[in-house]
């Protein structure tokens, strides 16, 4: 009898509360596409202000209408009364999908051997079934740049959306070659090199990079003139950067390295973005002058030097923004990319303001990645990559109730949630 009651109860839930599908024994929840009408929401468009009591229609993966009192027709209705809709958040620097368990070399696919491996494709190594992906996307982070690391040119980063069964399905349409600018800074307390040695080593590394660069330039000129070229994938990939087909993402953090990098890129006509930029606050005006976009973060990290004011990592983004730098944020995380809204929230609190912080993880990122035609804001014609929350998504207590990626309704579950459901009120407790 009891079982029957529970069953009927679950059945009722099943019929009227699709969010709870995951709680039914044996039920497998998959993302699915339909025509969804989100009704009566507060819509944070990002680019066109905040719209109250507004409906948003999702068809064929796109936002096809935004307005008041849209006709319900045969759409799947999603009541958003009292709730807010935001474009999916974009993390502009992660290794999500490239590593499963951080300490296990067998699961680390973000680093190749050698200093010169620009042709290595992060997208090829993304595991669409990484446990961290559903853990991330239920937070409203729908899109991330996932990137290789190590060496001078560790590989090619890819923008991916966090839904899909193959890397191609996850491909969000942007790639960039990553470069680590050689540092003339003393790295950590165990770096015992003299100031002179450090500078000499950095100079030497930059020379090596310049040699590589010249080689790539020769390769490109031979290619452009239709000359015979041997298979040389490193140069092939770099030549695309030189030809302006692929942007270059330059990781650089110490203030004087940033200045050196500015000088280095100035001589070249490159499509370039600076990443990291931890000490950007020291040279913000120079960065602004250069018009080079910056991806900075993590925000929740220590200041880079013992002498720094305690909050420089929190305020860096605000200082850069106020100087006029175009800015996006990153967590530089793999399993905790879900914390992106909190990094943005800290940046907001420490001087950036909520509106700009929101832009830094939506439209600014989309523009830097040249996908602003389809991502980064809620506008008709853009991809239906968005989420519904019961409040300010930067606030920890806010709950994200539904995520859509490219029009797919994403199951609001993951391993963390399933463990919670199983163990909150465990059976077989110890006897008293």
């Amino acid at each position, binding site marked *: 009898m009891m079982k029957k009651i529970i069953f009927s109860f679950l059945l009722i839930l099943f019929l009227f509360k699709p969010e709870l599908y995951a709680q039914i024994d044996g039920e497998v929840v998959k993302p699915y596409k339909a025509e969804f009408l989100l009704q009566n929401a507060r819509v944070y468009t990002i680019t066109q202000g905040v719209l109250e009591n507004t409906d948003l229609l999702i068809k064929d993966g796109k936002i096809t209408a935004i307005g008041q009192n849209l006709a319900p027709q045969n759409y799947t209705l999603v009541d958003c009364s009292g709730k807010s809709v935001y474009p999916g958040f974009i993390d502009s620097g992660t290794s999500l999908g490239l590593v499963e368990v951080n300490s296990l070399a067998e699961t680390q696919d973000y680093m190749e051997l050698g200093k010169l491996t620009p042709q290595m494709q992060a997208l090829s190594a993304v595991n669409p079934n990484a446990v961290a992906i559903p853990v991330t996307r239920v937070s409203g982070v729908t899109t991330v740049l996932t990137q290789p690391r190590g060496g001078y040119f560790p590989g090619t980063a890819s923008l991916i959306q966090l839904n899909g069964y193959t890397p191609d399905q996850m491909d969000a349409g942007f790639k960039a070659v990553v470069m680590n600018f050689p540092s003339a800074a003393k790295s950590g307390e165990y770096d015992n090199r003299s100031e002179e040695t450090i500078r000499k080593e950095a100079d030497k590394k930059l020379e090596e990079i310049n040699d590589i660069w010249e080689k790539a330039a020769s390769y490109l000129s031979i290619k452009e003139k239709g000359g015979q070229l041997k298979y040389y994938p490193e140069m092939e990939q770099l030549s695309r950067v030189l030809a302006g087909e692929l942007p270059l993402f330059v990781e650089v953090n110490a203030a004087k390295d940033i200045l050196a990098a500015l000088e280095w890129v100035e001589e070249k006509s490159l499509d370039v973005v600076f990443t990291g930029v931890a000490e950007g606050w020291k040279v913000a005006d120079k960065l602004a002058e250069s018009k080079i976009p910056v991806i900075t973060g993590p925000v929740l990290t220590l200041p880079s030097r013992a002498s720094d*004011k305690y909050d420089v990592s929190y305020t860096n983004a605000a200082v850069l923004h106020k100087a006029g730098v175009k800015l996006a944020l990153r967590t530089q995380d793999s399993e905790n990319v879900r914390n992106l809204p*909190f990094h943005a929230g800290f940046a907001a609190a420490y001087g950036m303001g909520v509106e700009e912080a929101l832009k830094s993880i939506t439209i600014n990122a989309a523009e830097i990645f040249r996908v602003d035609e389809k991502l980064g804001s809620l506008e008709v014609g853009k991809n239906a990559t968005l989420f519904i929350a019961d409040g300010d998504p930067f606030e920890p207590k806010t709950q994200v109730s539904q995520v859509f990626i490219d029009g797919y309704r994403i199951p609001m579950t993951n391993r963390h949630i399933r*463990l919670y459901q199983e163990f909150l009120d465990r059976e077989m407790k*110890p006897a008293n």
Partner: protein
Amino acid sequence: MQTKILLLGLWMICCSKVVCQAQNASKGDIFIKNAQVLTITNGLLENTDVLVQDGIIRQIGSGLRAPDGIPSIDATGKYLMPGIIDAHSHLALEVINEASSPITAEVKMEDVIDPFDVSIYRALAGGTTISHAMHGSANAIGGQNITLKHRYGTRDPDQLIMKEAPRTIKFALGENPTRVHGRGKNLQPRSRMGVEAVIRNGFEEALQYKKVWDDWNASGNDSKKQQIPPVYSSRLETLVAILEGEIIIHCHSYRADEIYMLIQVCQEYGIDKIVFSHVNEGFKVAPELAKYTMGASVFADWWAYKFEVYYSTAYNAAILTKNGVVTSINSDSDELIRHLYHEAAKTQRYGGLTDDEALALITINPAKQLGIAEQVGSIEVGKQADLVLFDKHPLSIYAIPQMTWVDGVKYFDRENDAADQRLKVDPEETLEPIFLHTEHHNCMRDVDFYFTGFGRNLFGHRH
């Protein structure tokens, strides 16, 4: 040139406001008016005054009047909460691990306190006033920890010690001790079976040791004259003190099976003073933790940094709390310790804890786990005046700590916050090192030298 730099360094030290305050008065007076007081044990008191004299909270109420000469602060609209307590930290320690043996209970962290660590100031700027400075996790039974009060500015390590705090000791289960000793040195423990055996052997040896000494002490003067006294061992003395309930165990642990194993061992030896730390799979044995232990001290959301934390959930703190486990959220990191209020707030996203439940995770609950709940962890008359004032509710992402007091002495004030807070500047250092987003937590610091030629970096992670 060098003299100049040296003089500059000295000048910087003398000018530091923090230093002067701390040396003049290690216990302070302050009158905080009209605050939103998050008492923790008695809910939120709106528009309430708090009077602190000689480092102790003397009065809490509205319309209080402070005696003459006591500095006062108008805290209208601001939130006052107890100083945040971190039950697992390695802040202000020169070394972390004495990894030379699976049991090193004789080692004391109080001998390696570094009062110059600028991380202490940064923790204060995040509202954290007390940290539990722990031995690392290399050994099944590690060294004795020390509870610190963040009286930044003193150059005397002893001034940082919270004298009232009871003794605690570090235990560690799972991957770290088995890797350091089993795989690193071919010594037991190599497996979770071995960890249990090492701990049991230690306890048994301690019981024998105690018996030998009890017999010796009970023997008559004549026999004492004729016999050599038993050998003194500070290691076994410490283990005996654990068995006698004088020392609280804080055990680094992750998996449910190993947690359950140590609960059983402790039951068998009559030990009830045990707190499990990290305890990522604590949620699986929450009813057992509730029944047999002093609780669990967890991360808000760390997982997947090593295999034994792959099956974790960010709902851990919520599950533990709702099962009646005394639960705290710790940092194990010089970075996380700067925003434990934010880490506690995450339990509202992951499991919907109330404000009171979430704030207890970083105040009264860690105080209970460290045995200092009589002195700190809530805003109550008679308790020590470790306080932090926020501009907004501390569980909001937009909250910024404004002032932090330890024993009524203000050690942090955002309004008057000089950039460089170092107490010691190396006059020969011409190039200051830069630290970039590395792992800031370090349970496994100082053990790297045990490992070469493994074909794999065993210490890519640090906790």
